[in-house]
C-alpha cells in the first residue's frame, strides 16, 4: 500500500489518503463472520461449466445442420439423371440376331422405322405413356426366349 499513485503524468496527493480511507472503512466496519462459500461456488461452477459445454455442443450441431442444408440447397437441380442399368445380356449363339436393347449398341440396334423417317434422339425424354417403363421388362422377356432357344439347341 505504499506505492505512489500516478494519475497519468504525475503523482496524486490523495492516494495515501484514499488508501487510509479504504482501510478505515473495511477494518472498522463490523465484519460478520464469513460463511462457507467455497462449496456453493464449486457446485455453481460445475453447473456453469456444464451449461457452457451444452451450449457449445448445441451451437456446433446447429452449425453442422445449417451447413448440410446449405450444401444440399446448392446442389444443381437440373443435373442429368442417372440412366437405369440395363440387365446384362447373355451371349447369343452365332447367327441369331440380338434383339435386346443395349445402350452400347445404340446406332446398330436402331429402332429406326423401316420407312426411313428420322429416328428419335436417344437423349430426348421418352413420352410419359409408360412405354419407357416397359423397356427393361421386354428385354427380360427376350433374354428368357434366348435362354429357351439355347436349351433347345443343346
Amino acid at each position, binding site marked *: *500500500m505504499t*506505492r505512489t*499513485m*500516478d*494519475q*497519468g503524468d504525475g503523482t*496524486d496527493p*490523495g*492516494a495515501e489518503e*484514499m*488508501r487510509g*480511507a*479504504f482501510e*478505515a*472503512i*473495511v477494518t*472498522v*466496519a*463490523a*465484519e*460478520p463472520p*464469513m*460463511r462457507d*462459500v*467455497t462449496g*456453493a*461456488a*464449486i457446485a*455453481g*461452477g*460445475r453447473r*456453469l*461449466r456444464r451449461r*457452457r459445454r451444452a451450449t457449445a455442443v448445441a451451437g456446433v450441431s446447429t452449425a453442422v445442420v445449417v451447413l448440410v442444408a446449405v450444401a444440399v440447397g446448392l446442389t444443381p437441380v437440373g443435373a442429368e439423371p442417372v440412366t437405369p442399368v440395363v440387365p446384362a445380356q447373355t451371349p447369343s449363339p452365332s447367327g441369331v440376331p440380338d434383339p435386346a436393347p443395349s445402350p452400347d449398341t445404340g446406332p446398330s440396334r436402331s429402332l429406326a422405322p423401316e420407312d426411313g423417317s428420322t429416328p428419335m434422339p436417344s437423349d430426348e425424354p421418352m413420352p410419359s405413356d409408360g412405354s419407357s417403363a416397359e423397356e427393361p421388362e421386354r428385354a427380360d422377356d427376350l433374354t428368357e426366349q434366348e435362354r429357351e432357344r439355347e436349351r433347345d439347341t443343346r
Partner: protein
Amino acid sequence: MREATREREFREFAEARQRHLRRSAYLLCGDWHEAQDLTQTTLMKLYAAWGRVRRDGNVEAYARTILTRTFIDQYRRRGWLVEAVEEVPEPPGGQGPTPELRLVLQAALMRLPPRYRAVLVLRFWEDWSVEETARALRVTTGTVKSQTARGLAQLRRLVEQETVEVSGR
C-alpha cells in the same frame, strides 16, 4: 481424479483469498450480505474457468477482475442513475459504535457512480496500475486516468458535504 485435484486446488485458493475478496466486494457495494453474494458469484465463475486460469498463471488478478466486472454488470442491469442517488445502507444494529469518520467516508464512497468506485477500489485498495485497471474494466488507460481524477475530486467534495451534514445534526 483430475476433477478431485482441480477441486482441491480451488478450495485452497478460495479459502485463503475469500476474506480479502469479500472486503473488496464490500468496498464496492457497501453491504456485507451483498458482498458475500458477490464473492460467491466470483468464486463460482472462477471455478468454471479454473483449468484455463491455472494454466495462465495470475489467479489472484483474474479473481479480482471477475469480482469488479460482476459488480459493474449487476449495477448496469439495475441502472446507473438510480444507483448513484441511492440511500447509503445503514449499518446493521447491534454491532457497537462505529467511528463517525468511517460513516462519512463510506457514505461518500457509496454516493459515487459504481464505475468510479470500481476504478478507485482497484487503483488504491488493490493497488493496481492504470494499465491493469484498464484491462480489468475493459476501458482505455485514458479513461482510467480521467475516472480516477474525477472520482477523487467528487469523493472529496462528498466527504466535505457529509462532514458538514454530520456535524450539523
